[in-house]
């Protein structure tokens, strides 16, 4: 029997959903919200164990240096596939629809990322046709602000990124979602530590 979203999510999130929606609407420099303890703890721990067994491929360009898995849709790991099914579901889409107000076409990307010491993703806006909401779910353990690997948001001036105005530490079991737009400038600061920064992320179209 496949896993349902309701089986893995922390019930407190559902109870606080109106507050989360309000935070998403009001947060600056562009609409976003951070949800801590998103999954039931044992589910998140189990997921971390499984993702560590996935194959990560090095990705490098002028903009980034990190490792990434294939889309989880193609994973051969049953637990990863179950997690993918639970998130790529009408229940999860309804939740994000309630928070953001966006309706989705059911097109969904999900892959694992690994930032080792020295890995980074420089400032960009994520905008690509069809992307409405970006999400990142952090699974890295024991990250502190000084380790960096922080998710940084930029405000903009005349349509260009200007200053870094907000930072989020990639804490274990933290979900971050944001609206993709021409001004959703963000970056992943270089991992300055020897810790492995695991995350799962993608977009809802």
């Amino acid at each position: 029997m496949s896993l349902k979203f309701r089986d893995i999510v922390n019930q407190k999130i559902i109870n606080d959903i109106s507050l989360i929606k309000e935070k998403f609407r009001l947060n600056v420099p562009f609409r976003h919200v951070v949800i801590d303890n998103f999954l039931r703890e044992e589910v998140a721990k189990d997921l971390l164990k499984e993702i560590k067994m996935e194959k990560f491929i090095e990705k490098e360009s002028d903009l980034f240096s990190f490792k990434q898995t294939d889309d989880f849709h193609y994973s051969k790991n049953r637990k990863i596939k179950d997690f993918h099914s639970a998130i790529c579901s009408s229940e999860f889409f309804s939740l994000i629809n309630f928070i953001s107000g966006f309706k989705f076409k059911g097109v969904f990307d999900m892959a694992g990322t690994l930032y080792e010491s020295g890995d980074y993703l420089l400032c960009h806006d994520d905008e690509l046709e069809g992307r409405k909401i970006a999400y990142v779910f952090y699974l890295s353990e024991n990250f502190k602000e000084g380790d960096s690997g922080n998710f940084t948001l930029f405000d903009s001036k005349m349509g260009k990124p200007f200053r870094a105005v907000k930072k989020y530490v990639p804490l274990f079991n933290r979900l971050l979602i944001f609206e993709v737009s021409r001004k959703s400038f963000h970056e992943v600061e270089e991992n300055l530590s020897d810790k492995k920064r695991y995350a799962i992320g993608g977009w809802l179209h």
Partner: protein
Amino acid sequence: MINKIFLEEKNVEKVSNDMIKNSIIKMDNFLDNYSEMEEKISKLKFIEKRVPDKFSYSEAKSSFFKNVFNSFEFIDYMGRISGVRFKRVNLRVLKFRHKNYTLMHDSLKSEESFHFVLFFCDGWDVKYGGNKVIIKGEKNFVLTPSGNSLVFFRLDERDREFFQYIKHFAGKSEFFVIEGSLK
């Protein structure tokens, strides 16, 4: 200014042939007065500049280097090895260290253009990042900063270039680069 070896007729011909064939050439020990130039560049006043989705580095203004690289000797030599007649050099003097980078630009160039970079550094390690990457068609040229190396290259319409982000492995190490476009 230019190492006399490069000025020998047979070497001009060899460099010119390589340039025509590959559109890029690296010349080590390019300056004969490198130490003097290095001292001058290290004493310039650099100002940090950052446009997050484009670049992050420090830049200095220098009429001294502007004059040196607009000298007849330099422009004439670059003309001889490329077969193109140049009139002037647009110059930038940059400093790179941890967290600095440049990104590729999307804008297409309307025609071919000639450029060079000259590095001033000591013991730069490839694992630091900061390599100059030139993408010509399917080929990637990755140039690790190396003191007194001049890289001369032609960019066509679809070619791209950037400096890789410099990682924390670099510590306090830094390098200077003189970047020029020939017109």
